[in-house]
């Protein structure tokens, strides 16, 4: 067990207290989050500047739970038997067309790259979800973290007083907490399901603010006696968790959209998804590095077209408002917005006018930070049956996401004796769509 600590640069010259960091025994190199004021002092160190800059980036993942159809969104096949009833429309990028169900996004494709060549091979909800959440197939030997935990780990700000992985999943279809796997509970999501604010974030009514604070101060004082003589990272994580409570509680207001002017709320729209898009902007603006907004019920085995008519309108409005808002605030260049699901939907239209699960040729999008807007990566055949160019697996998508954020996709974590690459073996980023 290494009891001496690491610093941001990995240089012993400016070591920070062991208690300032967590996981130094687990991971070589930097571990990024605040512990106490001693760490804050470390921020004055010039070597941290570059690190911090990278850390100001954020990700908003719009998760289309159940599996959205690529035909009715990003890869239309008008006029083909597989194409369905909807038209393709022109966009603000000459030569690129998308489904007419996304008219607002069609006017904002300059912010966005479309990937049309996902071939992920797992068309099962559970397995597909794990695969697209972690960027790799399940393996018995290792409990892999999901994208949110990886981003929290990589981009979590040193001086953060806010949660670093927020996941909003109000609908029940495909609801899944995900998790930090071997990175540890420090990177687990703040998970919102029934309520629009995180659980246990609000002080009990029976207590005054000052009592709550002084009680925490007493706890800290008494705990210190125990922790000081015991050199153990798990004990340190306990102190760290309690130290973060005040900051997290203060971030409650970030979840309250009543604090937004009516004009902003109108701009995003009234649906739950659209409101959560607005919350995600508030969170990102406050420094939360990863926010997931799930919008479920895309699993349209029956009535695929009616389903998409409704859901695409919701997505189109929420997503385009989010991109506009981020852009106006100067946040889009540091925020990567992703649309993704566990898989896409079949070219074949079944007897119930539905489309079934399909993982061999489907689409997702990346907008904003580090992305070459208007780019289209990969191609499917004329009926959307298979990928004919630029096949991309889940690991390749993850490599692309990391590179867009300035995170080296060849980075490795050290898990015991075993180095674990941040993306799946052999995964490569799609350089063509990176800015």
């Amino acid at each position: 067990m290494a009891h001496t600590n690491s610093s941001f640069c990995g240089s012993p010259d400016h070591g920070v207290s062991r208690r300032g960091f967590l996981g130094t025994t687990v991971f070589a190199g930097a571990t990024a989050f605040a512990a106490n004021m001693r760490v804050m002092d470390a921020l004055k160190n010039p070597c941290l500047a570059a690190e911090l800059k990278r850390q100001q980036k954020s990700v908003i993942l719009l998760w289309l739970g159940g599996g959205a159809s690529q035909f009715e969104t990003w890869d239309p096949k008008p006029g083909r038997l597989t194409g369905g009833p909807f038209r393709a429309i022109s966009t603000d990028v000459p030569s690129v067309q998308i489904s007419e169900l996304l008219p607002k996004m069609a006017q904002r494709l300059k912010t966005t790259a479309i990937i049309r060549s996902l071939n992920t091979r797992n068309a099962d909800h559970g397995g597909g979800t794990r695969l697209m959440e972690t960027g790799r197939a399940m393996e018995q030997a290792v409990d892999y973290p999901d994208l949110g935990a990886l981003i929290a780990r990589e981009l979590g700000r040193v001086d953060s007083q806010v949660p670093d992985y927020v996941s909003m999943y109000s609908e029940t279809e495909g609801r899944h907490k995900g998790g930090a796997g071997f990175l540890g509970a420090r990177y687990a999501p703040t998970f919102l399901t029934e309520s629009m604010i995180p659980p246990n974030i609000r002080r009990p009514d029976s207590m005054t603010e000052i009592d709550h604070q002084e009680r925490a101060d007493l706890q800290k004082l008494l705990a210190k006696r125990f922790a000081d003589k015991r050199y153990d990272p798990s004990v340190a994580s306990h102190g760290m968790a309690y130290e973060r409570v005040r900051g997290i509680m203060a971030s409650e207001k970030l979840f309250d959209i009543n604090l937004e002017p009516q004009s902003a709320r109108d701009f995003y729209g009234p649906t739950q998804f659209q409101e959560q898009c607005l919350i995600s902007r508030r969170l990102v603006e406050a420094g939360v590095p990863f926010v997931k907004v799930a919008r479920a019920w895309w699993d349209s085995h029956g009535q695929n077209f009616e389903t998409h008519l409704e859901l695409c309108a919701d997505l189109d409005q929420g997503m385009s408002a989010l991109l506009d808002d981020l852009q106006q605030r100067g946040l889009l260049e540091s925020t990567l917005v992703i649309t993704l699901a566990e898989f896409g939907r079949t070219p074949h239209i079944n007897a119930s006018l539905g489309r079934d699960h399909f993982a061999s040729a489907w689409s997702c999008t990346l907008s904003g930070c580090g992305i070459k807007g208007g780019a289209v990566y990969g191609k499917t055949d004329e009926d959307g049956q298979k990928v004919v160019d630029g096949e991309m697996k889940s690991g390749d998508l993850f490599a692309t996401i990391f590179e867009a954020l300035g995170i080296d996709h060849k980075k490795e974590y050290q898990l015991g004796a075993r180095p674990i690459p941040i993306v799946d073996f052999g995964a490569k980023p799609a350089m063509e769509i990176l800015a």
Partner: protein
Amino acid sequence: MNLVRDLLTLSIGLALATRLHAADLIAPELPIEQAVDHYVQTHLAERQVHPAPLADDGTLVRRTVLDLQGRIPTIAEAKKYIESTEPDKRLKLVDSLLASPDFSYQFRNQLDDLLMSGQKGNQNEWREYLLKSVRQNRTWDQMFRDMLIGNEEDPETKAATTFVRVRAKELDELTNETSTIFFGVNVSCAKCHDHPLVDDWKQDHYFGLASFFQRTYVTKKNVVAEKFTGEVKFKTTKGEDKVARLMFLTGTTVEEPVIEVSAEDRKKQDEEVKKQTQNDKAGPAPKPPFSPRAKLVEIALQSGNDQLFARAIVNRVWAMFLGRGLVHPLDQMHSGNSASHPELLDWLARDLISHKYDLQRLVRGIVLSQAYARSSEWSGSTASPAADLFAVALIRPLSPRQYSMSLRMASAAPETYKPESGGEEWPKRRDELERNCEGFAHQFEQPSENFQVGVDEALLFSNSSQVADDYLRDSSDRLIGAIRPETDKAKQITIAYWAAFTRPPSGEELAACEQFLDKRTEPVAGLRQMVWALLTSPELRFNH
């Protein structure tokens, strides 16, 4: 396949070859605790490391009760031990804890966490089976037989085969979890390729082990059964198609006896199996004359091959009580990852085999050792010694159940629980306690390597009504209700410290708490806040 560096070095043959000869080990008749201390001390002396002193009585009784009873001690239990002047009080304590009803619950829970962690679903019968096994001190090899090939017609062993039943759908999971849990070897990496550095670890080993499970299936009536035929085919890294031989991890192979079956009979067999998987009114599942799973159990327990089985459980039991395996991580027992104390591991494995896999005897020996009893505080001027020296006690997070039960007891009025009273009353109360604490236990993470406490846990304690209205209630059955009538603040604080930490407060702590209480305008609210600060201490969250 560029997994080269990521592979575990899996060389069982080598690991066995480099083991010391039995003759080099110290005498087999020695008590386990003496062997442990001999090897651990020698190791320290060779490195000139002075270990931490033994923990004081209060710390030790707390640690031992947490480990052997799954909860903190009551004040009365602890004081009885601390105040005793008998020279063999520790021995007596350990023996009485092992004989108590609480031990069977706790050791059951430990085995459950080992065998079923990560598996979902209501497993009451399974947990009952484990409880009964611990009560009867069923030997580990017998439990292994029960779990892998238990008779499906006997309700008791049918509960044991839950181990296979919940994993039978996924061949990889069944193969790898059997291997990591019972043999300490994580073979999953060898699925995709031979080990590039060690010649004797091949894909053949992975698929060889999987072959023993290939025919296993679960019928519509939820019975574990085996098919008449079925083999594992795989593609080698060179791209050839290959049929795996039944091969144990040590390289021992099995030839399936050839039984002539007509095509017509074969077809009938296949139809019967199909019926079993589809029809919940089918008769008893057919039993093929050859059972690969039974063969695996037979081979794994054969003299020579049994080293893997014995060493894996020794290592796991050691880690349960010392916080780290002799081989670490626990699923990587191979030649590239040698034990910190190889002779000790050998000695303990030999001892376990010669005492017929009596786990409770092993537990007793480990808990009686000095290595177990050291202080977890390191106050020397040098850096804390490496964990694998066992020179200072390692801190272990409580399991969710231990934590939930300990919170319940720490926040109760001191006389509420009386495990020391004996009689018929306590076992019932313990059973209740176990059940009542289940719900809150689900809020916590199961300890694992690199365990961290997340902010969700801290928020739960800080703001949930569950904590405020239950643990911090001021009714007479709770700690706060019990100390409230006391007029002397120092007494209130002292009782609370004993209840939560099994010790009195230090002068500084007493002063800090008194000062805190003095500032409160509402005395009861003040007590609740102070008790909260104790309940949320790392001193209660971890076994130290």
